[in-house]
């Protein structure tokens, strides 16, 4: 069988055009990864030098590594102090003094802190308001109704670019988003619920607070809520540089890369079952003893080619990213730093899970394409038809914009490449991709993959039966 597979591979790859196409797609995708995920990143280092692309990523990796630690109360306090220090360093003190007057040092201290003295805050607010009117500049502070909170909205900074970098990072803990998620010491971070008449009633949305209203959460069965709470509790609470992991994740979740690989697979495999008839080889093979094994060899070849292309592409991407920055801290909660991709946080996943889940789904998307194209080539005995039909099959979901789909498109390879299938509309938690079967909670993406395994087995069984007879088609 191994020999037969080897010859099947030769049938496919003994063509300059196909080899060049392979190299073009696999290496071209590296260029594309650079273009979409590396080249646009910029950072300003301590020497106020602006860095771009690879250098920026390397600098950022170092920058975040320097701030690593376990997120707990002490860590947060530390971070806050650092922020204050940084504010002091980079503020345009002359300008600020002009605006805030004698309150300026105090404002730096109490900025973004709660439970302040209302008298004091009120005084600061009123004085600053007056000054701003005189100077004819916008009012730079925000505060709450009962004057217990004050925050500088408009910073007068001497070194804007570098400080922006620094503040982006420090904004985190102070606005409680990523860091508070990591810091899950407090009980009330979990989702609290009661069950009334088999219906979940949410008492406290917990860590999902700012993203999911009660009504959304209440649509899910108890198992799903428990699953989320469980995951939340077990999340790592360390903070470290994940620039490498993030870049790798951004690369492999770029659907354009895999779309090109799909096209490559279609070109390579659309002829796999029809090549015999096209080259009039069927008459030789039909009266050969091992004829029945050829179909099996072809099926295995299809799988091997697909998995190999996937592995090579992944390997190339991994090599490319690890050449830029080390890929490390995969067990850390996947908080993708803001400077890379704002809003992309996967609070319930570690990077390892994220990469594996994305990788597997992509692999299955590729497999589904190769299954469809090879089965079509078996059915139609026409490589042109099978490649065009598979391309339509891949492209179909793209035709239906805004989800005006006539049926569920999640099972289509193109949709499988997208975040929606993996993590749902809200990629942070992926709630609506969690499906409860019996007592167990599954991800929809896993179910789709299993669905393709079953479909693949059935389709290939059909091919096997069709090719079973030693008959030359005339």
């Amino acid at each position, binding site marked *: 069988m191994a020999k*037969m597979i080897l*010859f099947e591979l030769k049938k496919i790859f003994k063509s300059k055009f196909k080899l060049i196409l392979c190299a073009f797609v696999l290496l071209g995708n590296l260029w594309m990864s650079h273009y979409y995920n590396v080249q646009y990143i910029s950072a300003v280092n301590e020497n106020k030098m602006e860095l771009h692309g690879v250098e920026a990523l390397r600098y950022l990796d170092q920058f975040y590594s320097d701030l690593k630690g376990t997120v707990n109360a002490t860590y947060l306090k530390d971070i806050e102090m650092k922020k204050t220090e940084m504010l002091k360093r980079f503020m345009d003190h002359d300008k600020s003094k002009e605006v805030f007057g004698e309150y300026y040092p105090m404002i730096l201290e109490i900025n973004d802190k709660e439970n302040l003295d209302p008298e004091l805050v009120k005084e600061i607010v009123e004085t600053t308001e007056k000054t701003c009117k005189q100077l004819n500049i916008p009012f730079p502070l925000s505060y709450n109704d009962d004057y217990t909170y004050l925050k500088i909205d408009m910073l007068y900074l001497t070194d804007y670019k570098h400080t922006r970098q620094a503040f982006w990072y420090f904004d985190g803990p102070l606005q409680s988003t990523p860091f508070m998620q990591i810091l899950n010491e407090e009980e009330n971070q979990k989702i609290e619920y009661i069950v009334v008449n088999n219906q979940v009633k949410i008492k406290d949305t917990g860590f999902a607070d700012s993203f999911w209203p009660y009504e959304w959460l209440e649509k899910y069965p108890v198992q799903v809520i428990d699953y989320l709470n469980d995951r939340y509790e077990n999340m790592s609470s360390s903070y470290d540089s994940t620039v490498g992991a993030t870049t790798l994740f951004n690369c492999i979740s770029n659907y354009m890369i895999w779309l090109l690989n799909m096209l490559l697979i279609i070109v390579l495999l659309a002829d796999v079952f029809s090549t015999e008839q096209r080259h*009039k*080889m069927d008459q030789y093979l039909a*009266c050969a*003893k091992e004829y029945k094994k050829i179909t099996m060899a072809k099926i295995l070849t299809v799988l091997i080619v697909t998995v190999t292309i996937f592995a090579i592409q992944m390997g190339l991407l991994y090599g490319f990213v690890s050449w830029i920055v080390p890929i490390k801290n995969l067990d850390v909660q996947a908080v993708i730093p803001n400077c890379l991709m704002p809003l992309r946080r996967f609070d319930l996943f570690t990077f390892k899970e994220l990469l594996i889940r994305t990788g597997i789904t992509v692999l299955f998307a590729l497999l589904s394409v190769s299954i469809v194209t090879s089965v079509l080539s078996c059915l139609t005995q026409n490589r042109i038809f099978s490649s065009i039909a598979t391309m339509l099959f891949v492209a179909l979901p793209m035709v239906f914009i805004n989800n005006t789909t006539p049926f569920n498109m999640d099972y289509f390879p193109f949709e499988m490449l997208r975040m929606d299938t993996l993590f749902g509309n809200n990629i942070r938690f992926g709630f609506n991709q969690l499906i409860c079967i019996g007592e167990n909670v599954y991800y929809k993406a896993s179910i789709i993959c299993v669905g393709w395994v079953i479909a693949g087995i059935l389709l290939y069984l059909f091919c096997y039966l069709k090719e079973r007879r030693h008959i030359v088609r005339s």
Partner: protein
Amino acid sequence: MELRIEELTKQFGKTVAVDHANLSLHEGVIGLLGSNGSGKSTMMKMICGILPSNSGNVFYENEEILKNYDNYVMNLGYMPQQLGFYPNFTVQEFLEYMSVVKGLKKEFYMKKIEELLMKLNLEEKRKAKIKNLSGGMLRRVGVAQALLNEPKILILDEPTAGLDPKERISLRNMISRLGEESIVLLSTHIVSDIESIADKIVIMKKGKILYYDTPENLLKMMEGKVYEVVCDRKTAERYMTEQIVVNVKKHHDQYTLRIVSDEVIEDGTSIEAGLDDLYLYHFNDEVKLEDF
């Protein structure tokens, strides 16, 4: 060793390609003679078991071939009329692949390929891509793949088409040697291909088997039917429209005609018949003069 065909019939729509054919083949070279479209290839495909018949069966050693097909094909070598190949394979790779598909052992087929490449004078082309081979070389590769498993039944569909005279002769010799131990069925519409080597000849016409006999017996049937006539141009033209003229030779104003005829030709001399005469005698209605 016996290969028997019983009432074998194949229809393509309205055309009856093979019509109730009966044959019993034994060791030796059997020439299958018939004009284009007479059903030679179709019958061969059915003998190979790769084309289902409408009725009738093929038996090898008294066993219906499809019953124990795997066993049957181990003894079968088939070279189709339309040669297929993977264009980017080299000759060596192609032969290795065919060996693997035929289920041969590596030690066996590596030796066998060497031997065949030498015999068929293809050694230099071992590493050449098949798509770059000439028609004659390609046909030799086709013969080589059929011989890989040392078949007891060798089916060659027009193996000599496209070969140059030298290649033709060496192939003929090879086939003749193979016929000593196995059943070699070889189709052609060119009489000279089988004239000297065929132990038996099958003549097929419009799907029907007209004759199956030794060349000698077939020629005996033609005795007294072949004449040579020497005449002038006018008479020659008359003969050409009225009779089966196998050959015309012109010498000055004298025409020498070779005529096959059931009737006695008055001014002709009766001469010894050849297979060409036999062929034309049967296929005259399908042969146009332009063919010559």
